[in-house]
């Protein structure tokens, strides 16, 4: 009994340490990999507590490895958009200009009931009031309501020095326009941290901070 008690305290401290190591994101909305990480850690911790004959190191090692892999994976995702896409996915537009993209909803395995429930969660009771709806990588749906006059939400055009083709196509501005803006701001594609623009050509440009 004493061994289980001591193990419980140690595992508890270890999990707090592991969650702190992984950062505050674990406490908020979770990406798929983060959800897997949290579930795995809690299950492994239980195994160590349930069986006193199993060396505690058999629980400590997997918990620490999972926490470290999560942090290392996050670091890799920050540097590589392809891996980020593969691991976390991308946000998907399911309502565009008031029209529901049923194919996209089907791909995401969301029913119209899921969509309307998410709408009601955000205080929207009329689908015709929705200009845009985007399903985030965490599964949450965010809505932009129609205003008078209706506004086009800005799209991310450049992300981490790479052009976001989907966003650029939705604004119909074209690569030529992007190159002109970059030239006006005396910068290159690789120097851009994020650039967003709407279809009217209103843009916002944030350059990468210089390392040091």
């Amino acid at each position, binding site marked *: 009994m004493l061994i289980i008690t001591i193990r419980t305290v140690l595992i508890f401290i270890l999990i707090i340490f592991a969650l702190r*190591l992984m*950062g505050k994101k674990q406490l908020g909305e979770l990406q798929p990999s983060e959800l897997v990480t949290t579930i795995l850690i809690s299950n492994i911790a239980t195994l160590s507590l349930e069986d006193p*004959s199993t*060396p505690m*190191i*058999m629980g400590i*090692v997997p918990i*620490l*490895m999972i*926490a*470290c*892999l999560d*942090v*290392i994976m996050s*670091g890799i995702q920050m540097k590589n958009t392809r891996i980020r896409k593969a691991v976390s996915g991308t946000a998907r537009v399911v309502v565009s200009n008031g029209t529901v993209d049923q194919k996209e909803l089907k791909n995401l395995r969301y029913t119209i009931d899921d969509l309307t429930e998410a709408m009601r969660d955000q205080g929207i009771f009329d689908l015709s009031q929705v200009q845009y709806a985007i399903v985030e990588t965490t599964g949450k749906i965010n809505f932009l309501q129609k205003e008078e006059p209706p506004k086009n939400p800005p799209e991310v055009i450049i992300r981490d020095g790479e052009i976001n083709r989907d966003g650029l196509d939705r604004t119909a501005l074209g690569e030529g326009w992007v190159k002109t803006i970059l030239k006006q701001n005396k910068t290159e594609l690789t120097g851009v941290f994020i650039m967003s623009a709407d279809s009217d050509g209103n843009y916002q440009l944030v350059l990468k901070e210089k390392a040091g």
Partner: protein
Amino acid sequence: MKRIVICSIIAAVIIAGSICSVLYTAYVADSVVGELQNTKAAYAENDTQAAKQSLESASERWDFFCRLHILITDKEHILEITQIIARIKSMLEENGDDLTVECDAAAKLIMNYKQEQLPGILNIL
């Protein structure tokens, strides 16, 4: 960046520790099996004193390994081997039955345990 560095170091330490643990287990297994073979050979030549010394050395190494609780992943397997070695000891003390079979059995079990610890595809899956 600091977090990534810390995590990379922790992961590297864990991997290095795991590799060392496998290497040490393999070393212990090989040395204990070697001593058991020496015991068998000495017994075959009727050199009881040499057989007892080799067996004592094997037993000490194995007991030390068993005390390293964190390296043990299969307690039943370990217990079986410990019991066989104890049995061989008493057989030698009493100058009784042929202990060749027991030595071979213990050696086989130890090598099986060593194989189980190796990071082979069949062990992982």
